[in-house]
C-alpha cells in the first residue's frame, strides 16, 4: 500500500496547478465559485485555453489528438480543476459522443466530427431522456423511420442540458418497434438547424434555464448520420454508461464546496461567535468532512484499479450514491450557514428576476444551488437505480 502519488503524477499535478494559477481567468473562477450562470462564450473560452495546452481531450487516445491520460492523471486534472473553481468541461461532445464515435463510428465520422469537437466548431447536446423514459430509458419512443437515404425522426427529448448552446445533438431513437425495447434502438447524429426541430427551455426549481425539451416533427436526417449499425444503439449507450463515467464521486467539487462552506461558517456569526465555532454546526461540518476523507480514498482506490487496467464495476454505483449524498450534504449545510439570507431569492424562477441579492457575496447562490443540486441524485441513473445495481450484484438474485 502506498497512499502517495508517484513522482510523475506529482509533476503532472504541479503542471496542472501552475496552469490553473497562471491561466484560469479570475473572473471565470469567481463566477464558478459563486455559482453564477456561465454563458456560451465563457465555456468556449475555457475549452480553447485547454485545447491550446492540449488538455481538452486529456482522455482521448493520442491517435485522435488526445493526451491519453491514465485514470490517475485524469483524476488529478479533474480534482485540481474543481478545487480551483475552473469552469466544467462540457462533456457531451468530448466525453460522451467522442468515445462512441471512436469505438463504433465510421472512419468518415471520426475524421469529420472529432476535430470539430476539439476546435469548438460543434457544441453537442445529448438526446437520451424522454418524458416517459427516465429511469426506464429503454422505453423511449422517439422514432426514426428509414426513407431512402434519410431517416425521418419524430418524437420528443427532454432534460437536454445546455441544448440552447448546441448546434448538434446525438440521439437514441427507435428504429424497430417490433422487437424487445432494447433491441430496436439506434444512435443518430442530428443537426440542430434541420427543419422540424423545436427547442423549448425548461426552467428549473432554482430558476436556472439549464435544460430543454426538444421536439422533432418529421425531421429529415441523412442516413450516413447513423453511428454503427441500425438497432445497435443500446449497446453504445451502455458502453458509455459503464466505460466513460467520469468523476462520478465528485470529490473535487465536494472539496471546493466544503472549502467555501468553511469560509462562510467562519464569517457568519451566531450567538456572538463565528458560526464555525457553534458546536452543532461544527459537528455537522466535521461529519461531512470525515465522510469526504473516506470517500476520497474510496475514489482513489477505484482510480488506482482503473489505472491498473481493472474494469469499473459496482464501485461506480457506490461512488455515485455516496458522492451525491456528500455533495448534497455540503449544499445543505451551505444553505443553513447563510441563515436568513436564504430567504432572499432573486431568481428567474419567481417574477422580479435578477435584482441583486442583499446579503454578502456568498449568500445569493446558497439556496438556489441547494435546490438545483437535488438533481445529482436523480440524473445519470438515480440513486435508487444505483442501489438496485449494487444489491443485484451482491445478491446475485
Amino acid at each position, binding site marked *: 500500500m502506498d497512499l502517495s502519488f508517484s513522482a510523475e503524477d506529482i509533476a503532472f499535478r504541479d503542471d496542472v496547478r501552475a496552469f490553473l494559477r497562471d491561466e484560469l481567468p479570475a473572473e471565470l473562477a469567481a463566477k464558478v465559485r459563486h455559482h453564477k450562470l456561465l454563458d456560451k462564450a465563457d465555456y468556449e473560452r475555457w475549452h480553447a485555453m485547454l485545447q491550446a495546452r492540449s488538455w481538452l481531450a486529456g482522455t482521448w487516445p493520442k491517435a485522435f489528438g488526445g493526451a491519453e491520460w491514465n485514470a490517475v492523471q485524469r483524476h488529478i486534472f479533474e480534482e485540481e480543476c474543481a478545487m480551483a473553481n475552473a469552469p466544467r468541461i462540457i462533456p457531451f461532445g468530448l466525453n460522451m459522443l467522442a468515445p462512441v464515435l471512436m469505438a463504433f463510428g465510421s472512419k468518415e465520422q471520426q475524421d469529420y466530427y472529432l476535430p470539430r469537437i476539439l476546435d469548438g466548431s460543434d457544441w453537442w447536446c445529448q438526446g437520451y431522456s424522454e418524458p416517459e423514459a427516465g429511469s426506464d430509458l429503454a*422505453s423511449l419512443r422517439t422514432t426514426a423511420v428509414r426513407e431512402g437515404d434519410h431517416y425521418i425522426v419524430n418524437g420528443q427529448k427532454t432534460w437536454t442540458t445546455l441544448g440552447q448552446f448546441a448546434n448538434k445533438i446525438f440521439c437514441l431513437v427507435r428504429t424497430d418497434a417490433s422487437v424487445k425495447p432494447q433491441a430496436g434502438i439506434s444512435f443518430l447524429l442530428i443537426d440542430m438547424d434541420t427543419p422540424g426541430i423545436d427547442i423549448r427551455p425548461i426552467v*428549473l426549481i432554482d430558476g436556472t434555464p439549464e435544460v430543454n425539451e426538444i421536439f422533432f416533427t418529421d425531421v429529415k436526417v441523412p442516413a450516413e448520420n447513423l453511428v454503427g449499425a441500425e438497432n445497435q444503439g443500446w449497446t453504445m449507450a451502455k458502453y458509455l454508461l459503464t466505460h466513460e463515467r467520469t468523476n462520478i464521486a465528485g470529490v473535487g467539487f465536494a472539496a471546493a464546496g466544503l472549502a467555501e462552506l468553511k469560509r462562510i461558517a467562519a464569517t457568519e456569526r*451566531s450567538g456572538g461567535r463565528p458560526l464555525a465555532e457553534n458546536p452543532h454546526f461544527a459537528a455537522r461540518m466535521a461529519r461531512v468532512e470525515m465522510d469526504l476523507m473516506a470517500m476520497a480514498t474510496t475514489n482513489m482506490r477505484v482510480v488506482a484499479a482503473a489505472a491498473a487496467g481493472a474494469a469499473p464495476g459496482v464501485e461506480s454505483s457506490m461512488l455515485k450514491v455516496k458522492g451525491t449524498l456528500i455533495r448534497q450534504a455540503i449544499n445543505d449545510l451551505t444553505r443553513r450557514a447563510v441563515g*436568513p439570507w436564504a*430567504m432572499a431569492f432573486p431568481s428567474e424562477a*419567481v417574477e422580479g428576476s435578477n435584482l441583486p441579492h442583499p446579503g454578502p457575496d456568498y449568500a445569493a447562490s446558497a439556496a438556489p444551488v441547494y435546490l438545483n443540486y437535488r*438533481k445529482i*441524485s*436523480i440524473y445519470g441513473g438515480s440513486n435508487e437505480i444505483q442501489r438496485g445495481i449494487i444489491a443485484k450484484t451482491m445478491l446475485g438474485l
Partner: protein
Amino acid sequence: MDFSLTEERRMLADSLRGTLKRGADWAQLSDLGVQGALFTEAEGGFGGSGFDIAVVFEELGRAGSTEPVLEAGLAGGLLADCGEAALVEAVIDGSLRPVFAHDEPGNRYDTDLRCTATDGRLSGAKTVVIGAEGAGLLVVSARSSGGLSLFAVDPGAEGVSLRSVPSLSGGYASEITFDKAPARLIGPEGGAQPLIDQRIAAATLALCADALGAMETVREMTLDYLRTRKQFGRPIGSFQALQHRMADVVIEIEQARSAVINLAGHLHAAPAVRDRHVSATKNVVGRTASLVAEESIQLHGGIAMTEDYALAPFARRLIAVDHRFGDEDWHMERFIALGASA
C-alpha cells in the same frame, strides 16, 4: 381531551379551503375573516387562540398562498398589544396591511438590535423583511432611551427606503433603511420585548401550521405521482423501496401535525413552557419540512426539478421554514437551555 376542531373552526377551514382553491387575494381573504380569526374578541376579532391560528395557516399553506397574512397578523398583534384599536380594526377588515420590521443585517437568528429612535426619529437597517413590499404601515423595533420599544413608521415617509427582491417562499423580502425617519412610539416605552416574544411565538406557530398544510399538499402530489407515473411497465409506487420511503415521510408528517398541536395548545402558557414548545415544534417541523421537500423531489424524479410542475413552489416554501424565526439548531439549543433551567 378532544383533538377535533370546533364547529366554527371547521367551517372557517372549509370555506377558506374552497376560496383558496379558486386563488383568493388579500381582499377576499379579509372578507372571509382570515385576519379576524387571528385576534381575540377583546381585540376586535373572533379567535386568537393557538388553534385558531393553526387552522387558518394550515389552509394557507395547503393552498400555497403567498399573501402576507402571517406578517400582517404579527404586526397587527403588536398593534393590538400597544392599544392601537383603530389600526387593529383596519387590519381585521383588510383595509390596512402592516408589517413588523425587526431582524437586522448580520444578526442571523439572534436579535441584538442596533436600530435607534430618538426624539421621534428612527435610524438603522432592517433585513429580509417578508411582506414589506406594498405594506401600509411599518411596525419597527428599535432602542430608545427606555429600552426596546415599538414604533409606527409610514413606509412612504422621508428617510425610509426599501429595496425588495423575490423571497424563497413566494412574495418579496425587503431591505429597509431608516435615516432619521419620523417614527411614532406605540405601546410602553422600553416594554416591547415580552410583547415581541409572545407575538413571534404566535408567528412561529403560524409558520409551522403553514408548513404542515404545505406538507399535506406535497404528500398528496407525491402519492398521486407514485400512483400514476409508470416506469418499467408499472406504477413507480409499486416499487417497495419507494413505498417504504413514502411511508416514512407520511409518519413524519403526522409527527409534524402533533408538534403543531402541541404548540397551539401551549401558545398562551407561561413563557418558559411556551418557548420550550415553540422550540420543540419549530425544530421538529423544520426537520420534517426539509425531509418532505427532499424526499418528494427524489420520489418524483426529474419532473420535480422543474418550475412548471406544481411541486416547485411548495418545496421552496418548505425549505424556507428553516430560515425564519430560528433554524433547527438554534431552536434545539434553546430547547436544551430551557430544559436545563427548568
